[in-house]
């Protein structure tokens, strides 16, 4: 409960201004702050109040209790490429970040590797920073399932007591992590863009909210492990160290067929099979400005000339003009190519959060006020339909000359 110390309150209205939810007001008659029903106890007003008139009672646990938990865990998600099992980049990115956190805490870094015949991935994971690989192999872990994976990971967490667990915020990661959090009554912070250890040895988790308009930092002060998910391409992939050694710990897995309640009936890979825009170096991205579906062909042609891949904004996916695996943004994928060219994309905040960490951003848009120009390294205010054909012509001439 948020308490107002009426004596200390001066009615200065700072709390009213900083409240993200409009949940505290200074009553004109009394000139004192009053808390409304929609208060979420986020604490924004408590830190803003200059008179220590506001307070929230929070639960605390002993440091000894928390100290029983150590080791940073990463879920080692893999995927099948051309029939082969390969580790997903996001798992390596998390090993990079996890190493940094583990070093600050003076703890070791471990990876949870679940599957059937996945032992061959262990060395790569060790080279990328893992000190321990928990190898959980079982027939029933061959394909991802919510029940199978949540059960195995929950039991490893319960017995090994890590202080931090990180998951890739992929479709399966976002399916799995909350299941484990609910089972173990743990905090879980989604889509973190920053992770650090604060002076109290707590995991400081930074994430965007309200579509990226606001940043929030989140703590899990009195439960362990502290768990976070992170989207692909948010943290850099560490360079492997071929000399690094580590330990492989095989975990006994007891699963029964009936403990996995969902059955896969069919897998449908979209026609752009094998293309994962999260891994593309050059993306030619289009938005509503494209006008009609036929114009996609022009973009495909341009992407081909640039050795790039076509991606797009949510608007085009909603219209069914491009398939959802090619969608960039808050409800699609987060990409970080070396070059991102945006044609006819105005740059809603939900789109920008999905691409603003690209190395170089080029934007072409006929609206000079389009927000996309704010993140662009190079922008052209003009008509994409006129510029693209001219550009393709010039590009072909240039290639021919060289």
């Amino acid at each position, binding site marked *: 409960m948020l308490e107002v110390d009426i004596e200390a309150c001066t009615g200065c209205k700072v709390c009213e201004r900083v409240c993200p939810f409009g949940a505290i007001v200074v009553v004109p008659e009394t000139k004192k702050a009053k808390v409304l029903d929609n208060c979420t106890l986020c604490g924004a007003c408590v830190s803003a109040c200059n008179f220590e008139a506001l307070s929230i009672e929070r639960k605390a646990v002993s440091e000894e209790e928390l100290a029983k938990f150590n080791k940073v865990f990463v879920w080692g998600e893999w995927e099948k490429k051309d029939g082969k099992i390969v580790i997903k980049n996001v798992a390596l990115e998390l090993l990079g970040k996890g190493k940094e956190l583990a070093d600050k805490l003076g703890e070791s870094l471990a990876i949870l590797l679940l599957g059937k015949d996945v032992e061959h991935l262990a060395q790569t994971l060790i080279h990328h920073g893992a000190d321990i690989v928990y190898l959980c192999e079982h027939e029933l872990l061959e394909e991802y399932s919510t029940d199978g994976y949540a059960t195995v990971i929950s039991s490893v967490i319960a017995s090994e007591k890590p202080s931090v667990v990180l998951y890739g915020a992929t479709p399966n990661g976002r*399916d799995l992590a909350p299941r484990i959090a609910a089972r173990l009554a743990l905090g*879980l912070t989604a889509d973190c863009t920053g992770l650090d250890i604060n002076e109290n040895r707590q995991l400081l988790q930074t994430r965007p909210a309200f579509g990226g308009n606001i940043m929030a930092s989140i703590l899990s002060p009195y439960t362990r492990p502290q768990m976070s998910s992170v989207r692909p391409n948010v943290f850099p992939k560490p360079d492997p160290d071929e000399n690094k050694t580590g330990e492989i710990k095989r975990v006994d897995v007891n699963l029964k067929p009936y403990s996995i309640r969902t059955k896969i009936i069919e897998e449908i890979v979209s026609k752009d099979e094998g293309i994962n825009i999260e891994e593309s170096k050059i993306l030619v991205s289009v938005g509503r400005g494209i006008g009609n579906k036929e114009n996609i062909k022009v973009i495909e042609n341009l992407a081909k000339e640039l050795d790039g891949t076509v991606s797009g904004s949510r608007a085009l996916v909603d219209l069914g003009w491009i398939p959802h695996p090619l969608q960039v943004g808050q409800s699609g994928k987060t990409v970080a190519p070396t070059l991102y060219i945006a044609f006819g994309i105005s740059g809603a905040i939900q789109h920008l959060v999905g691409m603003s960490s690209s190395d170089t951003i080029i934007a072409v848009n006929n609206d000079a006020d389009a927000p996309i120009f704010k993140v662009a390294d190079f922008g052209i205010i003009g*008509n994409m339909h006129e510029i693209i054909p001219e550009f393709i012509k010039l590009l072909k001439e240039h290639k021919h000359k060289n």
Partner: protein
Amino acid sequence: MKIVILVKQVPEADKVAVDPETGTLIREGVDSILNPYCEYALDQAAKLKQEYPELNIEITAITMGPPQAKAVLYRCLELGADKGYLISDRKFAGSDVWATSTALKEGVVHIEPDFDLILAGKQAIDGDTAQVPAETAEQLGIPQITYGVDVKINGKRVEVKRETETGYQVLSVKMPALVTMSKGSNIRRVPSMQQVLDSRSKPIETFSADDINIDENKIGLKASPTQVDKIFAPPVKTGGEIVDGKDPKIAAQKLLDYLVENNFIKR
């Protein structure tokens, strides 16, 4: 057959911003709406009701929030829900994902204990965590399928077309189960005048924490493993060189020059 829809009232996220100068929230002109993904879940339920008349599907909308969240229940009733329930209590304040899912679980158990299917949006546009439905399913002890775009009923099982990173997969699970809906092929509908009039006679009830017999130690801030440390404005970007592209030939040449200079195209 009983379908429960879990819905959330959200501010129009696009319009909420932090003033980078003062660090305070700008919220003038920000309306509260039914979270769009919840609306798609409701559309899916209404579609199932039409497709399977023999199942006598009854749709119950449940939301947790402050008293004004009742507004989204009216919208649900207009769009096809048969009943609406608001779980509202100051004791829920400060609830994070875990505490929210605990409250929703208790709400579902109290309001519609013999449900067959729970549908929810994949995420809410204010928090974007996509975690509450899965945590609720876990607390209810039922299986889940996330990121659904199409749902079919097949006897005692539900079949869901689910988005994956490279396309789709079709999953099947025995009910009771929880399914979250991604935007997919569903369409936002405008209710007809008749639907609006019909909705007036549908019931809405409000329950407090005590009404649903929830343990006070499991809800609100004290039961929430995560806490907001602080809120701040994202870094402001200014942008780079901008050129006028009135003449497409000149613009195309400038674009080529930029790409060549920066080694994206070989000289």
